[in-house]
């Protein structure tokens, strides 16, 4: 047992910190500081990927032969942590963490050379087309059909929660290519150019003023057969591969750490009768409890990254990260809202969420309530809290 985050890691951290300080444009940083977890961030994800790409850091978690870095898991942890601390934008997750790994693992050489360089360089957005209106957590019940006609698939169906599809050029879809087999089997993984005829994208207005969630309608969309990744009928397997590939990301640990720091800063700035809220026991208690939970979550993540031999199934362990991480996203942003009290009621237009409206209003208040409202989705998307509990009961205890 060796629980020290060693000295070389500190050197690595300093190196990353210096690089980010040098590379991250001030306006981009300011937007992030205001927006936080909001999506409407001006295309910064791509711009930032392009900047990181110059150092070869846009997809460090990929294998070296595909443009990744030869970093240890803990170095990758420190890298992500530093980026978040410095208010760097998120990357285009669907591209770098979902479709990218599927392509380099299961794709053809042609697919690799066609798509991977663009992802590395942040050239365009990718959207995910898994869910359908009839199924949320129940992907096996998938209905969007892709019928092979000659050298192309004719795709018909409807996808929902294709986040960012309105801004994206490409999407990766789960489609049913074989209706004769049941449930998960017969599902394939298909890359679709979102500018193809027959595709209609509708932005769905959200609880917090954003409209990043999208519904995507596919009406006789023609997709070249060469856009199918891997084997037909293996789409479900690849989707699960993605989940297993990213066991710790659902903890949102970097985000949670950063937003808790923000909450503390708000508590130090906001006053009650001239006393900062951070000095009032009722808020000290909430801050300390959340900090305790975040600290524990960080170590839960480190345990996975450092390959602890768990007494329980690893997928069940990963679900604990999702459960804790998603609840923390909600609890931390609720605290931010409560710290602002009545001021948190104001709705800021999402496109102005990076502005402080007048000197009467606290700096960076604009994005907070929107972020808190949006974080209700944390316990829903990517497998609801209830689904996670079911996974744990089954895999950890055989119930």
């Amino acid at each position, binding site marked *: 047992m060796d629980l020290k985050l060693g000295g070389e890691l500190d050197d690595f951290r300093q190196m990353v910190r210096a690089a980010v300080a040098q590379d991250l444009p001030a306006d981009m940083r300011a937007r992030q500081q205001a927006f936080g977890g909001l999506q409407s961030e001006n295309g910064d994800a791509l711009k930032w990927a392009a900047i990181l790409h110059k150092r070869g850091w846009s997809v460090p978690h990929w294998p070296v032969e595909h443009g990744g870095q030869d970093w240890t898991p803990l170095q990758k942890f420190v890298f992500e942590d530093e980026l978040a601390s410095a208010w760097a934008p998120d990357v285009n997750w669907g591209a770098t963490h979902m479709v990218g790994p599927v392509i380099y693992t299961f794709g053809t050489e042609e697919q690799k050379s066609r798509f991977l360089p663009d992802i590395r360089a942040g050239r365009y957005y990718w959207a995910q087309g898994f869910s359908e209106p009839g199924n949320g957590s129940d992907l096996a019940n998938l209905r969007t059909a892709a019928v092979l006609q000659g050298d192309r698939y004719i795709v018909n169906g409807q996808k929902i929660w294709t986040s960012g599809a309105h801004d994206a050029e490409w999407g990766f879809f789960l489609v049913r290519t074989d209706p004769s087999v049941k449930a998960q089997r017969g599902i394939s993984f298909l890359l679709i150019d979102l500018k193809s005829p027959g595709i209609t994208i509708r932005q769905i207005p959200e609880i917090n003023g954003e409209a990043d969630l999208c519904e995507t309608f596919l009406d006789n969309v023609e997709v070249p057969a060469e856009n199918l990744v891997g084997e037909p009928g293996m789409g479900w397997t690849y989707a699960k591969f993605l989940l297993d590939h990213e066991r710790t990301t659902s903890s949102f640990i970097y985000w949670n750490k950063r937003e808790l720091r923000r909450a503390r800063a708000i508590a130090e700035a906001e006053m009650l009768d001239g006393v900062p809220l951070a000095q009032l026991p009722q808020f000290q208690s909430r801050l300390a409890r959340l900090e305790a939970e975040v600290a524990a979550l960080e170590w839960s993540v480190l345990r996975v990254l450092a390959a602890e031999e768990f007494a329980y199934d690893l997928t069940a362990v990963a679900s604990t990260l999702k459960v804790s991480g998603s609840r923390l996203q909600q609890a931390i942003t609720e605290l931010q809202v409560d710290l602002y009290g009545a001021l948190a*009621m104001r709705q800021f237009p999402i496109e102005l969420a990076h502005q402080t409206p007048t000197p009467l209003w606290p700096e960076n208040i604009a994005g907070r309530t929107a972020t808190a*409202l949006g974080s209700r989705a944390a316990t829903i998307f990517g497998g609801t809290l209830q689904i996670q509990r079911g996974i744990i009961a089954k895999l950890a205890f055989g119930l």
Partner: protein
Amino acid sequence: MDFNLSDMQRMLLDSAERLVSDRYSLEHRRALRDHHDGFDAGAWASFAELGWLALAVPEEKDGLGGSIEDVAVLMIAIGGGLVVDPLVSNAVIAPAILSDGHDTNLLAEIAAGERRVALAHDEPGERYGRGPRITRLVRRGNGFALTGQKMLVLDAGSADTLIVTASIEGEDGTALVRVDKNADRVASEAYPLIDGTVAADIRLDEVDVTADAILVPAEHGQAVLDAAHDRAKIALMAQAIGSMEATLSICAAYLKERQQFGQAIGKFQALQHIMADMFVAAHQARSALYQSLAVATAGARERARAVSLAAITIGEASQFVSRSAIQLHGGYGVTDEYEVSHHYRRLLTLEKSYGDIDFHIRRIASLDAG
């Protein structure tokens, strides 16, 4: 002791529920919010016609002399339909402040739907402050000059008249002053809240105020203000009850309709138990409302304590019920297109208006301390 509705309350409730179901579809409300600054002049005329704006006005002031229970019955229906028109400011706060005052004309105009007021009290840097710290009246000639800064004035978007709290040079206490929102040297910056209502920051820069614009003199102002705030909180809590109970119905229907894994999701025990806990919370919340209504006209301390206790229970229940409702809806719950997200946002602002949970806990402690 009788919890059932009187005939008059039954009529009031029926007419409110009818109006709400006829007029306030989700689509209508979303359109109002997005295109009309949240104010619906036609609806307002109906409210006046139905007598809602005169309900809490005493009979001797040509009102209907309704009780606080009557107001609560109306507000429950209003809350259930997510009606966010400025009823509390005009039908609850205005009578509470004006019924004992000299400006009978203003009260009559409000009751007739011809004028709308907003109470401008909170100031920057205050968390539900008790008295105004910045805004003050300085004597000038026979009248006063009013200077100050108000923030987050609820319902100010559609108001034409402000009731401003201010200290008076050389006097103790808090005066309540009538100010025309469009008067010279009154600067108003309006903005929407997350529930679709419109509030404003108000800057007053040596605004001319005549002596008879003082609606409540400084020596009585704080007591009148506290009573008005508590009545407003009761009205909002009643709305929260309506909103929570509507949320329960929506969710129960959704659980029966939505299919996943080959069955209605309402068959899953885990979701059934969430619904049950929501029911318990909403039921306790309604009881808390009754508890506060029972002493709403009692002494100030007893009233304040009961309102604060209810605000804790109802505030917690509101959040629990509406968050759970979103969870039960899955992804649809976080869209603007499903009702539950609107209830959630409304319930959040109801909790944060006229004192949030933290404020009410502190108020109880301070009442108990002295």
